[in-house]
């Protein structure tokens, strides 16, 4: 084996661990009878990709980074990492810079992501400091492209700037994410609950909010609500 085949230095790839999977079946309590109940495997989100990304991904990334630089912003500062996974391009943007990045994505002639497809909240309960993710999908009708922008916020400080001033369509989407996840979108014109009644307590789609089902009673038997049953994940 020649020396050229051995990588010079091992670069540490920062990975995002969002939890652990235990045992063979992911069963909790006494569910795992396989004898492998002690196995622990981390759940790792797809890590950052390195250049070249391939296809039009490089073009978009170059344009975005160039445009941000022109505005006096260090791309490495604004964009935490760029992930290519399953043929989809994701920019992980630091929340301070979300507004500027989204405005650039919309207005730069080479980018032109005119259509925002809303925001989807995801709650990673065991990812300390980055529990709440807000995931935006942007579509460019001009260039027929689709990208994803992901922003995180800790549970202790669930603030993310609102992009309603850039994409008015996100008005209701952000209200929905607030209602279900408790993400506070700063700068939203009227951040109120949209789906749940106004006096509802809690944010029902967070992972620490129970499903809220009731046990169903049959003759002589009770079936617990789906989240209370013994089950394998």
């Amino acid at each position, binding site marked *: 084996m020649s020396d050229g085949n051995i990588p010079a230095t091992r670069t540490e790839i920062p990975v995002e661990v969002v939890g652990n999977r235990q045992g063979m079946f992911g069963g909790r309590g006494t569910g795992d009878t396989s004898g492998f109940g002690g196995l622990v495997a981390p759940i790792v*989100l797809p890590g950052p990709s390195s250049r070249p990304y391939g296809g039009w991904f490089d073009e978009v990334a170059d344009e975005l980074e160039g445009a941000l630089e022109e505005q006096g912003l260090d791309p490495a500062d604004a964009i935490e990492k760029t992930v290519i996974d399953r043929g989809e391009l994701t920019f992980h943007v630091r929340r301070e810079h979300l507004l500027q990045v989204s405005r650039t994505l919309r207005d730069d002639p080479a980018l032109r992501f005119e259509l925002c497809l*809303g925001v989807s909240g995801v709650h990673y309960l065991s990812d300390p400091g980055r529990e709440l993710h807000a*995931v935006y999908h942007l579509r460019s009708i001009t260039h027929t492209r689709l990208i994803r922008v992901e922003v995180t916020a800790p549970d202790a400080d669930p603030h993310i700037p609102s992009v309603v001033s850039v994409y008015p*369509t996100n*008005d209701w989407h952000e209200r929905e994410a607030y209602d279900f996840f408790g993400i506070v979108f700063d700068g939203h014109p009227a951040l109120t609950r949209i789906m749940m009644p106004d006096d509802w307590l809690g944010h029902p789609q967070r992972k620490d909010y129970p499903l809220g089902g009731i046990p169903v009673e049959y003759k002589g038997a009770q079936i617990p609500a*789906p989240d209370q049953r013994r089950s*394998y994940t």
Partner: protein
Amino acid sequence: MTTHYEEAGTRETTEGRVFTVTGGDWGEVVEAVAKADDERIIVNMGPQHPSTHGVLRLILEIDGETVTEARCGIGYLHTGIEKNMEFRNWVQGTTFVTRMDYLTPLFNETAYCLAVEKLLGITDQIPDRATVIRVLMMELNRISSHLVCLATGGMEIGSTTLMIYGFRDRELILDIFELVTGLRMNHAYVRPGGLAQDLPPGAVDQIREAVKLFRSRMHEYDKLATGNPVFKARLVDVGFLDLAGCLALGATGPILRATGLPNDLRKSDPYCGYENYDFEVAIADTADSYGRFLIRLEEMRQSLRIVEQCLDRLRPGPVMVADKKIAWPAQLAVGPDGMGNSLDHIRKIMGTSMEALIHHFKLVTEGFRVPVGQAYAAVESPKGELGVHVVSDGGTRPYRVHFRDPSFTNLQSMAAMCEGGQVADVIVAVAGIDPVMGGVDR
């Protein structure tokens, strides 16, 4: 320090003393309103109102007959489907998503399955026949959804005949759905990896018949509505929203196409092999409710074309991926009470193969695992871009499923369309948006 509260007014009645209680500043509010000389009234329409297209609540501020401000109240049908799915396995997810926008069940299922297949990395392995049948069913579903839109829209503006026609023709399509999936609505027919089962014998002939019959009836809608001066008077120039407004508010589907932009995911970002079909994107340039109506009519015609092409394209073959770790082992069959395991298959696994039985049991109760990651898949539903964002944590259940429902986004444009118009036009504008509350609220 003591605060002085004015005692609430009381009066004695035969039922006891009745108090007149007022909140904080109501007195001032009433006084201020009394002084104002205009007739500004806030009207609540819904959530239980015969003409608001389901449990939609419209809050209108009107001045005489003119709407000065309009807002929507939604959430009256919030079902928590997205959360419920996190406690069911990936295949069971189709049963839930089909009930979101209940007029477009097959689009919900397909979008969800496309996203799951992307996560699994098996997009290329979906058999051709399954894809063609998906397209076939989706296009039939597009027709039935547009028919309900025309029917309920017609009913809301007082054209009962249009409603009777719409529901009559929808039955043609529901008959096909029932034959193929065993159910009239809420099918759970499209599954991750393919389809629950193949077309039953006789389905192709019946679909051909139905297409022929429906095509011969299409002109009735033209006769009844397209040129009808009363119908036009209600729809033309009502609910105007131009291209800039559409893009800002994220409106897609017929609303966007009515501004003249031929934006259709089936052309611009093809999925399920739509690039191989010959059809046109219907557009209009009026940007009003009438344009949207014309687009829906034209889309039904185009869908008929696609359905026929699908029928010609059908080749025998499997309808589920070959990977037995994903495909359900059972051959499902339509029985007298809907879909179920075919008896032959049960006989075989119970009688001859213990391993097959275990595999079957594991796959059905526990489900398959999906690698960690997230994916977004979108289809062009009759209402616009239906997007699905799924996140997996590597388990047998979704970690998060989010539907970007076109009805939800499109409904935001209601205020822009209605303000400044007449109260009666609000109904027409909402009917032109065609929101389905099941999709809006999920």
